[in-house]
């Protein structure tokens, strides 16, 4: 990859930021089940870390895509997965459509404050009865004059309790299936909106995740992002960026986990010598490193294709499914090689295992990725 001095310097900046400004707070955030995202994002925005590729007109940095790769990789190294996920939602999951298709007014009102870290945002697609099957969503936004009236619910929504606005996918016409959906900016202070429940999760415990309910929530019809009825297609494109972010971050997480495990096995003595003297452990870790390196360079190929303006749907699906499965494998082996202490909550391996189990589920499950690939490659009837 054509990484320049600026890319390397940016990596050093992000790495030191994560070590100094994120990691010391992770335990507290995990215990609280909440991160102070307005504070963290504002600080990051001042350093230019939010909205890297977005138009400087709205507070973006006009950076190339490799900076996003670096940001994701380095946040993947954080002591907990929640912050990287929250950042991903803010910068690469809830805002890409708004940036690309949103009206000037919407961008000034919602995108610019999000890129300054003043507003936190969520992406609200999944519903209690529609997860990977996005075409099955039932939340409706019916026209009433110049307004939309939204009714329905959204499930497993990241940043839910802190979000100032959401990018909601809802049905705006009676066409079925993939048709008749729109992406709509819904401010969290709109009457009729509520976070019905904060969800208790296996991992990513510092991230506030919620069940959202919309009861006759009125927003201006002008809050539709892009073309009315084009929401499914726009959201599918937004999912591609989301999956790429996830796969980039997985490399940082895996490399960090292997580094930490290597360090532990060099120190931990059993049967009279450090554990890393055992060839089995050496080879297993080396095998995992092989997989991580392959994913890293596959990610870089993805990033290059994306930078060339190509459709990276297939790239993103392959990278995402590989990332999910590899993270599960790395997390499991690293915990295993730590032995009993690896099973303790006080050891990083426990959280790492819990947090990263999500990768095969969120942003499109492994099975959804396989469905995408089966269609793309013609394994399909």
């Amino acid at each position, binding site marked *: 990859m054509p990484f320049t*001095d*600026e890319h*390397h*310097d*940016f990596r*050093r*900046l992000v790495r*030191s*930021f994560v070590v100094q400004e994120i990691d010391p707070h992770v335990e507290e955030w995990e215990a609280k089940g909440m991160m102070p995202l307005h504070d963290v994002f504002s600080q990051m925005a*001042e*350093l*230019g*870390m939010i909205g*890297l590729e977005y138009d400087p007109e709205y507070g973006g*940095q006009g*950076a190339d895509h490799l*900076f996003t790769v670096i940001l994701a990789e380095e946040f993947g190294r954080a002591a907990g997965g929640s912050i990287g996920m929250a950042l991903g939602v803010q910068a690469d999951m809830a805002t890409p459509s708004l940036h690309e298709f949103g009206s000037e007014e919407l961008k000034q009102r919602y995108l610019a404050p999000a890129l300054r870290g003043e507003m936190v945002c969520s992406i609200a697609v999944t519903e209690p009865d529609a997860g990977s099957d996005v075409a099955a969503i039932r939340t409706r936004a019916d026209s009433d004059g110049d307004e939309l009236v939204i009714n329905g619910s959204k499930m497993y929504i990241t940043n839910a309790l802190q979000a100032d606005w959401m990018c909601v996918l809802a049905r705006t016409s009676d066409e079925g299936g993939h048709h008749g959906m729109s992406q709509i900016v819904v401010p969290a202070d709109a009457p009729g909106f509520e976070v019905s429940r904060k969800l208790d999760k296996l991992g990513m415990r510092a991230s506030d995740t919620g069940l959202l309910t919309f009861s006759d929530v009125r927003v201006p019809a002008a809050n539709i992002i892009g073309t009315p009825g084009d929401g499914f297609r726009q959201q599918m494109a937004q999912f591609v960026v989301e999956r790429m972010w996830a796969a980039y971050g997985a490399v940082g997480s895996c490399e960090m986990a292997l580094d930490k495990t290597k360090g532990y096995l060099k120190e931990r003595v059993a049967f009279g010598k450090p554990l890393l003297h055992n060839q089995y452990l050496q080879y297993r870790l080396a095998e995992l490193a092989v997989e991580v390196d392959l994913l890293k360079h596959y990610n870089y190929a993805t990033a290059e294709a994306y930078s060339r303006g190509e459709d990276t749907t297939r790239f993103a699906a392959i990278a995402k499914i590989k990332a999910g499965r590899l993270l599960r494998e790395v997390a499991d082996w690293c915990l295993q090689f730590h032995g009993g202490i690896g099973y303790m909550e006080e050891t990083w391996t426990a959280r790492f295992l819990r947090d990263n189990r999500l990768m095969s589920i969120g942003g499109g499950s492994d099975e959804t990725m396989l469905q995408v690939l089966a269609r793309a490659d013609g394994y399909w009837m």
Partner: protein
Amino acid sequence: MRIAVCVKQIPDPAAPYELDPETHFVVRPEDQVLDDTDRYGVEVALQLAEAAGDDASVTLVSMSPSGSLQGIRQALAMGADKAVIVDDASLRGADALTTSRVIAAAIGREGYDVVVAGTESTDGYTGVVPQQIAEVLGAPSLTFARKVEAVDGKIRIERQTQAGYDVVEAAPPVLLTVTSGAVEPRYPTFKGIMQAKQKPIDTLTCTDLGVTADNQQVITSVDPVPARQAGEIVEDEGEGHLRIVAMLEEAKVI
């Protein structure tokens, strides 16, 4: 206000240092980092410049193999305006006085009102270079500043002492050294990183400065650090604390 900041690129302290078996000099990799203690000096300089207004400038001054300039770029990305680097093979292994003369010459060539430095470098640890620079320049030195401010045309510092601090001040031209913790160094920003490479970096030799390396220091031998001795286990049968107090007294820490 023209502010010069002494900075040093050093091998990454996170990686083990290597010594050249022939010369005993530290092997300097292409990529060196900004000495962490210098981040405080850069921050103080930037704050003084910001307080002084638009005409103020911050110039980094360094003596070391340039390498990839990674460490210099970091300080430029924080906000310094330009850098002057003295990179000359004859300065390899330069002692503290030679270093001071060379850096003072570089600072004098640029012109200055205030020179800011850390208290000591993290690789050499002589801790005398800033004061020697002041002496060569003929400027007063305000050392070990834990707080710095420009007041009534003077630089006033709180000078860290064992008992507390002294308030001392001097009118420019003046040199000051700042302790780690005096300020919270800013992070470089994305914009700063992108702009750093566009900023001027002048690379000078001894000839350019009209100085010669007059190194008086010779490394005769280098020995590895003695292996750590096993500690003493004090069995506590009610009197253990007395033995611990005695040990601390022997170590002269109490």
